[in-house]
């Protein structure tokens, strides 16, 4: 698998050959979960099945609030009967406080280790040090980096290309993986975010389960995330140069009525990618349009796709 041309300005040619694998450093914080009741307690706090997680494995789950809305999407590293939740730095303290509310008399203690990093290597196999994982559509493995570890030497040894922040964000949006811009303030249920595969419907109770299961039986999520692909000039025009935030851009239907908004956008030299939120149900992709702000280049959105399963409507 070759990386696309615009992925990174940090491409390192090793021995004259283009690297075949990509590497990424994720910056975050770790919520350490310790105590004899850690496994059972954590299984009731996250959507993923944790009860049978083995030492050295990593699982991806969702932390929901009691109404079933996504608060975070932690990586769960299993260390025997102890667990490390690798989460984004922003919001980590608030997440720990939220988790701590649900410890009553259980033998569970939480602590926060800030400013940590994880290394993902595409194509790497889980070997007890690295754990098999998928990141933004890339198959590989991930591990927590020790303090002071030099990433570049690890990456170069494997002949991989280290993605910079821009390239990593582009990979995220291109793969249609929701992140903090989608979760923050949007109050999404897992089915609305296309993350149903991170929910175990057979493991028993977890926080926020009831609304999720009710929606699963009823169908027709009221909101949906979609992925858009477009000319890079259009994608770049959607970002505010000052803040990096999204300029006003509506997703509209055939009548011109706004039915959604753009939540994330990025681009490489060849293509632009965006994630958007449809606020209403009942649309087919061929009836959607993007209305960018005034002054945006006249460029077409070439593809819309639902993130996750397409709706039943």
């Amino acid at each position: 698998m070759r990386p696309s041309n615009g992925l990174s300005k940090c491409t390192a040619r090793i021995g004259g050959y283009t690297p075949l694998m990509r590497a990424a450093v994720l910056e975050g914080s770790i919520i350490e979960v310790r105590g004899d009741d850690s496994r059972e307690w954590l299984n009731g706090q996250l959507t993923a099945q944790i009860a049978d997680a083995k030492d050295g494995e990593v699982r991806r789950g969702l932390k929901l609030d009691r109404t079933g809305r996504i608060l975070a999407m932690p990586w769960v590293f299993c260390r025997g009967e102890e667990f490390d939740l690798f989460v984004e730095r922003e919001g980590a303290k608030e997440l720990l406080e939220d988790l701590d509310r649900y410890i009553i008399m259980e033998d569970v203690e939480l602590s926060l280790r800030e400013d940590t990093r994880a290394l993902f290597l595409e194509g790497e196999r889980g070997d007890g040090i690295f754990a098999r994982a998928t990141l933004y559509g890339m198959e590989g493995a991930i591990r927590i980096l020790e303090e002071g570890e030099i990433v570049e030497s690890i990456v170069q040894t494997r002949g991989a290309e280290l993605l910079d922040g821009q390239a990593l964000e582009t990979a995220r949006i291109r793969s249609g993986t929701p992140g903090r811009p989608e979760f923050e303030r949007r109050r999404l249920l897992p089915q609305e975010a296309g993350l149903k595969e991170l929910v175990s419907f057979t493991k028993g109770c977890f926080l926020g389960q009831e609304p999720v299961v009710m929606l699963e039986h009823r169908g027709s999520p009221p909101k949906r995330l979609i992925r858009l692909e477009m000319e890079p000039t259009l994608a770049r025009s959607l970002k505010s140069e000052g803040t990096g935030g999204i300029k006003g851009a509506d997703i509209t239907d055939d009548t011109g009525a706004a039915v959604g908004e753009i939540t994330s956008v990025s681009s490489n030299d060849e293509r632009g990618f965006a994630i958007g939120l449809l606020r209403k149900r009942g649309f087919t992709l061929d009836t959607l349009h993007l209305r960018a702000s005034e002054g945006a280049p006249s460029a077409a959105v070439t593809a819309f796709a639902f993130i996750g399963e397409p709706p039943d409507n």
Partner: protein
Amino acid sequence: MSIQLTPRAAEKVKEIRELEQIPEEALRVRVLGGGCSGFSYDLFFEDEHTELDQKFVSHGVPIYIDMMSYQYLEGTEIDYVEGLHGAGFKFINPQAQATCGCGSSFSA
């Protein structure tokens, strides 16, 4: 305020104790972190308590509650209901902001 059993719940507790041949044990009531609404109720028989437990007697049934759980259970009445959808102990908790459909989990 205390924790109360309804007469029906107290009779059921005594009946179960007799069946399990532990007629002198108390009912421990506690809250666990977990369940679909955030917290869940737990009931079991126990003959030990600590100085930090809250102790009550309701219709002849001694009840023990740990200090942490009591914060969430103060003023609760425990009933026993039987119906087409099953039978079990039901918690009427004035501190619960919401309760799940089956009644075993609540938010506070």
